[in-house]
Structure formats: C-alpha cells, structure tokens
C-alpha cells in the first residue's frame, strides 16, 4: 500500500530539523559529560522518533541510517559500550548526513543517499563490543529492541511539590497510589487510540496524576510500546487490570502500589529507585514539561496579522466618524473596540514570537567543530536563549551571527600556546548573549581573544586603497575599528576556509540594518572583542511619524526620527551649494522631501517643518510641509515587483483606505 505522504512532508521536514537540532545539542552535552544519562535518553528518544518518522514517510535510507545509529546508542545506554571521542565523532557525522538528506528532500529530492560508509563505521564501533561480550543484539523491530533496553527500567516519574501534596492527600484519604505500566502490541496501528482507551477506562473511577511520556506525546502516538501512568484509585488492582486487559492490543505489564512516604521531590536525595533516574533528568526540563502546542503555518499567522491590521485601520476610520458625529454611545463603543483591537494586536504579535534558542542551538556544534579544526580550545557560553523575537527576524539573524562567531574563533581567540604567552588561560571564552530591553533585543558576541589593533586596521585600509594616509592619521580608535564594516575589508593574514573569503563584516552590517537594527563593535587590544547587535522586537508593527509634502502623505519610522522643528525660508543658509540651518549651534544639512521624492504638484502652503532624522551617526533635516502626527502602523511589503525602490521601505493602508508609503531613511538620500 502506498499512501500519499506529500501533505505531511512539510511537517516531517520541520520536525526532523527540530529533532536534529536537539540531537546535536544533547550529544555535545554527552561529550562533555559521558555519564549524562538525561542527555543520552534524550538523544535516544529523538533518534528513535526520527527513525519512525522517516520510515513512515518512506525515506528508507534515512531510516536505515538512524536505525544503525540507534543500535550504537542502545549500547551506550546499557553501558556495554563506552562513550568516547571516536564514537561521538561518528555520531556527529551521522547527524551531518541526516542533515544532508533532509536538505536534499527539502529541495525536492527523494532522500536516497548511500550511507554504507557511515553504517560500516557504526557497525564496527558496535562490533567492538559484540566480540568482547560475546553476545550480539538481534534487532528485528521497534518493539523487541525497546523491550530489551527498558524492560526492567523503573518508570522515571518526576514529582513536583504539588504532585506530592496531591499524593499525600490521597494517601490520607486511604486511596491507593498505583503505578501502571501498560504495553501496546508492537504491531498496533493506532497506538494513540489505545492509549486514549486506557485513559478512558481508568478515568471511570480513578484519577491519572501523571503519565510518562506526557499526555501530548501519547495523544500523538509518540511513544514506544509501553507507557507509565500514576493513578490514584479506590478500586483494587485486580479489577483495574481486568478492565484494562479487555482493551484490545493492551497488556498490563505491571501495576504496583507506591508508598507515598518514600517519595521525594525531584532533585532531592535519591532515596527511592523510582526517583533516582528522575534525578538525572533535572537538567532537561523539556522531558517533563508538558505544554500544549499547535504547529501553525507561518502564512496563516501573516494572514491573521493582515486581518488585525485591517481591523485597526477601520477602527481608525470609526474614530474619525466618532469625532465628527459626537455621539456619546458611538464613542463609548469605539473605545471598547479600541481596547479589544489593541489586545488582539498584542496577542497576535506574541504568537509570532519565537525564542532565539532556535537559532542559537545550532552554534555549539559549529563552535566545537571549528575550534577542533583550528586546534583552539574554546569554552562557548550562551546566555538568554529564551529571549523572544519575531519570526521574521529570527529567520534572518542566523547568518550574521554565524559570521561573527566564525570571526571570533578564527581571528579573535588565539592558539593555546599564544594565550599562555600573554598569561591568559589556555582555554578561550566565547560568549553569546541575548537579552530583551524595551522594544529591542540585544545580541552580543564577545570573545577574550587578541582584540582588534586599530593601527593594523588603518594600515590595511590604506594598503587596500580604501582611505588615504592622511585620512587614516586623523581617525580615532573607534573610527578605525569602524573601518571593519567597509566593503572589501578583511584583515586575516591568511585566507582560511573558515572566514576571510572576501565576504566581510559589511555584509553582516547590511543584513542587520536591513532588519532595522544596529551593530557596534568594541575591542581592547589583547583583551578581546565585543560585537553588539540591537534589533527591533518585530518588523511588522512600528511607531511612525506621519508627514505631508504637497498632496502626498508619508510615514517616517519613529526609530530614525530625533526631533522636529518649525522653520521659515529665512532660516535657511547656503554652504557649498547645500542648504543648511543652524540647530542649537550645530549645522544641519537640509533636504527638501518634495525634491527628493520628485513630487509633481506645486506647494500648497508656506509652512516648513524640519524632521531631524538620523542615518548611521549623521543627522540631516528633511523639509516637509506639515506634521500629521504619530501613529502605530502595520507595515506591508510592496511585493516583488517594487522591491528595491530607493527610499521606500514599505507601505501601509491608512485609515481612509489609501495606501501610504514608508520612507527608508537609509536609502533616501
């Protein structure tokens, strides 16, 4: 039977990538601490799910590879195989291959790749032990394999204070606390349905306190062939077993009573076997934290956002009517709508927020590989990976960060021998921090490496003909470091394949600025370098100043407006053919917006307002005819056909239904 799986392909790809990210992360943990059972369990779980998913989708090569990988993992888990560098490297290689396969599938391939090289490696790692132990493990299917590895495991429930209180309460009421392990037939096609029936049967007269795996995993059928439940019941075990066994494909493996007095909160002393394993899990909250989530296509969210945008727009229209009609009842209703649409807007915004973890998670692996290649010793620390950013920003920020991290590893942090000479610890430290402040998110990449030498930068810039010798002499330390961001600049003495491929920091800067962000660098020679990126929380809704020139209305993002002021024609002076005004003792160059935008109609009023805007570090004044006011606007793209029109960042639909353009200060003049 061949089913059409194409509709599940997107979900498959998305989930595979998620699992892969998780696998990489946990394997790094395991590499650091070979005894980290929680990490190993997590790896095992993710690999197993990946295997199941890929064979369901018909990607046999992928399934086969993960299957062999799982074989090795089982041996790790059982302790029959030592976790060492060779095997970890092999498994990392498998992850890379899986990534390749997934990428190939994503670009329309069939996922068929010859993995025999890796499988041979995996088998030889595994056979090393088969010979020693004299026992081979025949793996014929999911069920057997799982049974072998987990049959005698104690269920690893983790109890919170709250759970314990409930259990103690139950105990005091003479209710039984039971631990059930139910087994689903390995060939069952509807594992989730069977699990559901078990739940139903138990809930007739008892209560389920906890399940392992979590309720959601059970619902989605994401579990092996057994699951554990913690039940409070007044029924005797025998009748409960009888009731459960009447469900087809379900077998009760064990049903034991638990002594509540012996239980402790997870993380405490491991007094009870049942808790001891949970103890290992403290590090990975994900295993126990059950959160209900829904996977939504980003297009639908965009659609929702558009609709909310339209609602806000029509609310604006209603407000105008309310202002002219002066009806109390109408105005009261408008106020309500205002409040609700405001809430709706912030909820929709929140829905689009994703933790930056998604991007950060792929870095530890990259740092590990790079530092190994370059023979550098680096501690990589990540802070604030829960920081949330709009999905659109998240998608764009990965590449610039990779660039900065690579730079820090390649050019920043010195070789161990060199570090010793400078009396630094041999291990370099690379920090990646994210934090949320006001309407912005700050991301910092900091290393304790060699730092940037302003003199060398100047010299390089002169050599490359980017600036003149005299110009270079006049530059301050900060200005010299800023030269790094000039196109065509790369200081690496040696071109390595890590960085210095002609793609410089200017690309990073462009990307960040395209996201309405800023990037700064601070460096102390011999101490280290710190790149600081400031990003807006979202790109979809911004505060803007609405202005008009002649009969046209434009929006200027408030983030680039410093101030506004009113002037007369007499205030304008000419310096070297450039119109300027004096603003508090400073010379401010002026640009007439009507001229910049080639507005065809004639001026209708003599009023002149100056909007002082900032581009990079320079201020200029834009001459407009009137200031309409500050407004929250929902940015819409102008689409493919109009992409790249200089000076225009996007469009909005105004309260009157007309389209207004948003000025892009960076490309306006």
């Amino acid at each position: 039977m061949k089913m059409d799986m194409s509709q599940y392909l997107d979900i498959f790809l998305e989930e595979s990538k998620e699992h892969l990210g998780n696998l990489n992360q946990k394997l790094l943990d395991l590499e650091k601490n070979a005894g980290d059972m929680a990490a190993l369990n997590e790896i095992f779980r993710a690999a197993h799910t990946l295997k199941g998913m890929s064979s369901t989708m018909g990607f046999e090569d992928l399934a086969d590879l993960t299957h062999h990988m799982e074989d090795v993992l089982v041996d790790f888990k059982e302790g029959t195989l030592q976790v060492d560098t060779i095997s970890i490297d092999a498994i990392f290689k498998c992850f890379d291959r899986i990534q390749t396969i997934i990428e190939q599938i994503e670009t329309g391939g069939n996922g068929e790749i010859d993995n025999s090289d890796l499988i041979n490696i995996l088998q030889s790692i595994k056979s090393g032990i088969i010979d020693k132990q004299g026992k081979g493990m025949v793996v014929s299917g999911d069920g057997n394999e799982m049974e072998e590895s987990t049959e005698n495991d104690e269920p690893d429930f983790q109890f919170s204070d709250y759970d314990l209180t409930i259990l103690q309460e139950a105990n005091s009421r003479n209710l039984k606390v039971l631990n059930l392990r139910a087994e689903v037939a390995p060939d069952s096609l509807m594992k989730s349905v069977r699990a559901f029936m078990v739940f139903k049967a138990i809930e007739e007269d008892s209560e389920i306190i906890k399940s392992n795996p979590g309720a959601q995993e059970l619902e989605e059928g994401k579990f092996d062939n057994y699951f554990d439940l913690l039940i409070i019941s007044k029924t005797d075990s025998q009748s409960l077993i009888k009731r459960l066994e009447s469900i087809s494909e379900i077998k009760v493996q064990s049903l034991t009573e638990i002594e509540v007095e012996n239980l402790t909160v997870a993380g405490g002393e491991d007094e009870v076997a049942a808790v001891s394993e949970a103890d290992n899990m403290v590090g990975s909250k994900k295993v126990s934290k059950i959160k209900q989530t829904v996977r939504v296509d980003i297009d639908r969210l965009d659609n929702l956002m558009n609709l909310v945008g339209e609602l806000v727009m029509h609310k604006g229209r209603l407000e105008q009517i309310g202002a002219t009609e002066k009806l109390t009842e109408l105005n009261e209703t408008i106020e309500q709508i205002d409040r609700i649409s405001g809430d709706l807007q912030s909820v929709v915004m929140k829905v689009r927020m994703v933790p930056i973890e998604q991007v950060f998670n792929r870095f530890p692996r990259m740092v590990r590989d790079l530092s190994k290649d370059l023979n550098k010793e680096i501690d990589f620390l990540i802070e604030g990976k829960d920081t949330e950013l709009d999905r659109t920003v998240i998608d764009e920020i990965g590449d610039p960060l990779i660039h900065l991290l690579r730079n820090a590893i390649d050019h920043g942090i010195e070789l161990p021998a060199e570090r010793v000479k400078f009396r630094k610890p041999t291990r370099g430290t690379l920090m990646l921090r994210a934090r949320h402040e006001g309407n912005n998110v700050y991301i910092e990449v900091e290393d304790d490496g060699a730092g940037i030498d302003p003199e060398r930068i100047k010299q390089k810039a002169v050599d490359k003909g980017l600036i003149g010798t005299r110009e270079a002499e006049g530059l301050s330390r900060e200005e010299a470091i800023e030269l790094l961001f000039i196109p065509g600049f790369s200081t690496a003495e040696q071109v390595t394949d890590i960085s210095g491929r002609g793609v410089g920091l200017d690309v990073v800067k462009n990307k960040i600025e395209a996201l309405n962000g800023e990037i700064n660098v601070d460096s102390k020679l011999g101490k280290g370098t710190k790149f600081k990126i400031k990003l807006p929380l979202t790109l979809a809704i911004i505060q803007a100043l609405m202005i008009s020139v002649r009969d046209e209305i434009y929006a200027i993002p408030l983030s680039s407006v410093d101030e506004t002021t009113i002037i007369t024609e007499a205030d304008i002076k000419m310096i070297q053919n450039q119109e300027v005004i004096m603003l508090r003792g400073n010379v401010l160059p002026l640009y007439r917006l009507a001229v910049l935008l080639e507005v065809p109609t004639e001026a209708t009023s003599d009023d002149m307002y100056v909007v002082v805007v900032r581009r990079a570090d320079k201020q200029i004044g834009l001459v407009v005819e009137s200031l309409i006011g500050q407004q929250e606007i929902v940015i819409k793209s102008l689409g493919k056909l109009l992409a790249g029109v200089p000076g225009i960042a996007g469009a909005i639909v105004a309260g009157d239904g007309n389209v207004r353009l948003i000025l892009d200060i960076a490309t306006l003049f």
Partner: protein
Amino acid sequence: MEKALVTDNEQPVFENEEFQVVAFKLGQEEYAVEILHVQDINRLLNITRIPRSDRHIEGVINLRGNIIPIVNLHTKFNLQASGNEEDKRIIVFQVDELKVGILVDEVSEVLKIERDAVEPTSKVYDSIETEHIKGIAKFEGRLMILLDLLKIFE
C-alpha cells in the same frame, strides 16, 4: 491546466477546445488575457504614486487590505490613452505568486475563443515586443493580442 499557455509562447498548446479570455482596450488596440489569471476588475481606486520607481509603474492601490502594484502598459508599450475617464478600469491579475494590476482604457467583455483561432506570432509589431505576446486571437472578425503576463511582469 493551461500551464503550457504561460510558459510556452512559441507554440501555445491548449488542452481544451475553447478557453475564456477577458478582452480590453489599450489605446485603439484590443487585447486579451486568459480569464484564469484575472482576479478582479475594478474602477480606478486611489492610486498612490511611488517616487523614483520605473516609468511604467503607475503606483499602488489597496485592494481589500492587499497592496497591489499597478503597471501602466501604455507607457510600457508606447500607446496613447484613449476613451472616457469613466470607462477606465484596473484589471488585477494573479500569476503564480505575483499579484499585479494594469490600467486599461475599457474592459470590453469576456469571450470564448477556440484554440484554432489563436495564431502564433511571427510578425514583428511596432509597439509590443513579440516575447510579450502569446498569439493573435481571432473572434468574429476582431483581432486581439493575447498577452503573456508572466513575460511582461518578469
């Protein structure tokens, strides 16, 4: 179904005997586009000018919350505008991911055209480059230029 129409302008291949087109006027000439691509026909809405954009970009409109760019084919094909102001319309197309509107002087009607009645273009026309045309459609003595939208908006 008529993917071939869009991608192959040398030899249009129509799988069905008849297909529907929207016929409209640009200047004195009559044009047609496949109805499958037409999303909306509208009176002239307020068009917002886009400064510094290409000459043939008329501006953008708000069509039910969507921002749609409007292309002026008169300037693109060097045609004179004609007809009454109140007859002018905006035809909004969707070709693949691209949504775009064109300004036309008058929308004539929706016609059913037989596939045999479309002649591939080999002749050179003054105003329009051959690559923008899928063929010349004949209908009861009228000649209509069948436009290849994808090529025009490339």
